[in-house]
């Protein structure tokens, strides 16, 4: 506790809100999680000054990992400017006095809800996920005692029963988020509700990925350069999924798109869900149909889609 630089302490809170004992407890849990990739480590989750579901698990992990020299970025569904992201960013601005950024490359720690940034992560970065339900088998086997046993004995056939049901009812694997993965050929893990488009980014990632579930009191992790495989069938292989169009603002064709309904007649516009990626591209001169300067008519007439199902595998 004496090692903390007094200049980084606010008058009202210990550095990064949590007391040092709690942070130490969380770090011990995180070390275990990193040592056993994909394994859910129980921890004594604390009451945080925000409701469950707002990222209390992620906030505690971030708090335990922060140093005064860190620069943090907080995203919610890829966006830096939504309520959840802004409030958590301000929380750490106030309680840890750390620098914040929206720039994926400049951040040393990124807390995320439901997305992995489009920009490649690098060594030394930490990506903290907010996790609502850490147990991938929860809705198939409600008994926690049984699911723990199944993890311990690597009995994961049940996970495929879910995928089987998808194919039987929808003709394809319809699970599009929180898509189960197997880490280092051992533990099946719920990657939190990220779109399955992001699943391949978890594999062999140079950054450290930490997962915190506050209400469920679980920590888990994917250390850098891990083998992460999305579960599938031999005759129904895993596919990524994104809207089959390009971003209306920056014309990116490789990023995950949000569908935004912009008027009462159902006109839609597809934009990058990763706001920093989109702004970065726009500042480099990429323009989409919605903000093309060459064609001012387009400004008020975003791309519309009447085709119905726009999802396509890529």
């Amino acid at each position, binding site marked *: 506790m004496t090692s903390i630089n007094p200049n980084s302490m606010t008058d009202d809170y210990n550095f990064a809100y949590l007391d040092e004992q709690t942070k130490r407890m969380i770090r011990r849990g995180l070390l275990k999680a990193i040592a056993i990739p994909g394994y859910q480590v129980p921890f004594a989750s604390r009451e945080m000054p925000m409701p469950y579901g707002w990222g209390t698990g992620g906030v505690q992990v971030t708090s335990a990992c922060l140093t005064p020299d860190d620069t943090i970025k907080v995203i919610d569904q890829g966006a830096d400017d939504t309520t959840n992201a802004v409030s958590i960013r301000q929380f750490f601005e106030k309680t840890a006095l750390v620098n914040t950024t929206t720039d994926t490359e400049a951040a040393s720690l990124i807390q995320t809800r439901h997305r992995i940034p489009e920009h490649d992560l690098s060594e030394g970065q930490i990506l903290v996920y907010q996790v609502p339900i850490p147990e991938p088998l929860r809705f*198939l086997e409600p008994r926690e005692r049984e699911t723990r*046993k199944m993890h311990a*004995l690597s*009995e994961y*056939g*049940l996970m*495929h*029963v879910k995928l*089987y*049901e998808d*194919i*039987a*009812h929808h003709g394809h694997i319809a699970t599009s988020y929180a898509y189960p993965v197997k880490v280092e050929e051992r533990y099946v893990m719920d990657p939190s509700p990220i779109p399955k488009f992001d699943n391949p980014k978890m594999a062999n990632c140079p950054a450290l990925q930490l997962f915190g579930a506050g209400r469920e009191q679980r920590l888990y992790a994917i250390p850098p350069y891990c083998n992460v495989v999305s579960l*599938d*069938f*031999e*005759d*129904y292989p895993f596919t990524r999924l994104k809207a089959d169009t390009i971003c209306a603002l920056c014309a990116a064709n490789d990023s995950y798109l949000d569908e935004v309904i912009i008027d009462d007649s159902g006109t839609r516009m597809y934009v990058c869900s990763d706001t920093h990626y989109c702004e970065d591209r726009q500042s480099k001169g990429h323009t989409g149909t919605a903000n093309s300067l060459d064609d001012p008519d387009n400004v008020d007439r975003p791309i519309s889609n009447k085709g119905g199902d726009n999802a396509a595998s890529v």
Partner: protein
Amino acid sequence: MQPLFEARGISKSYGSIIGCSDVNLTLYPGEVIGIVGESGSGKSTLLNCLSAQIIPDNGEVLFRSPSHGDVNILQLTEANQRYLARTEWAYVHQNPRDGLRMSVSAGGNIGERLMNIGNRHYGNIRDTAEDWMERVELNVGRIDHRPSTFSGGMQQRLQIARNLVTGPRLIFMDEPTGGLDVSVQARLLDLLRSLVQKLSLSVIIVTHDLAVVRMLADKMVVMQRGNVVETGLADQVLDDPQHPYTQLLVSSILRV
């Protein structure tokens, strides 16, 4: 011929209450043993001991496993016990809701054991599920329906299909016809008998219904207050019961 399954000196008590005491049982391949007795006579306790769902106080359970060789079930690791239980063994519950996943389609229920042992080809799993739906006389068109939409008899047949799909050698059944009406019972017994013959299954079946024993079992074991009071060939015991309790049991069959 060597026995497939052998239980020696199985005893289990719950405090001062005796569940079963010093039970010996030998089962040869293709043989069906019926365990009968009134409620509370220790039938289910014995069945749970034999299938390693509860650990008896004394005794050993030997099983000639194709994959593990001759093993004492009670000394296997839990991982191996569970592996055996879902590959070479099957357990048919009295209430199909205990043995089925009610929120998963019929096909998924049948396919679960296949996926558990590493089958990862959807088409193959589906084909096998359809095949087994037919074998237990279920309408293949209902493969994607949930078991909760099935009748009791259909659920029981689905449970049997789900259990037999991995080709187990040994099947435990706990009152498989309990709670079904008489005509459905008869149909289920017919199905069971033909499956047992076709697949030369070894079965240990617990029931209080002597008709089930007469129809299915080769040998029978009569239990009273946790003790085996009479054993022998099923027809022999039923036609010429020696023990007073067995005589009472046989004489209390209603004849219409």
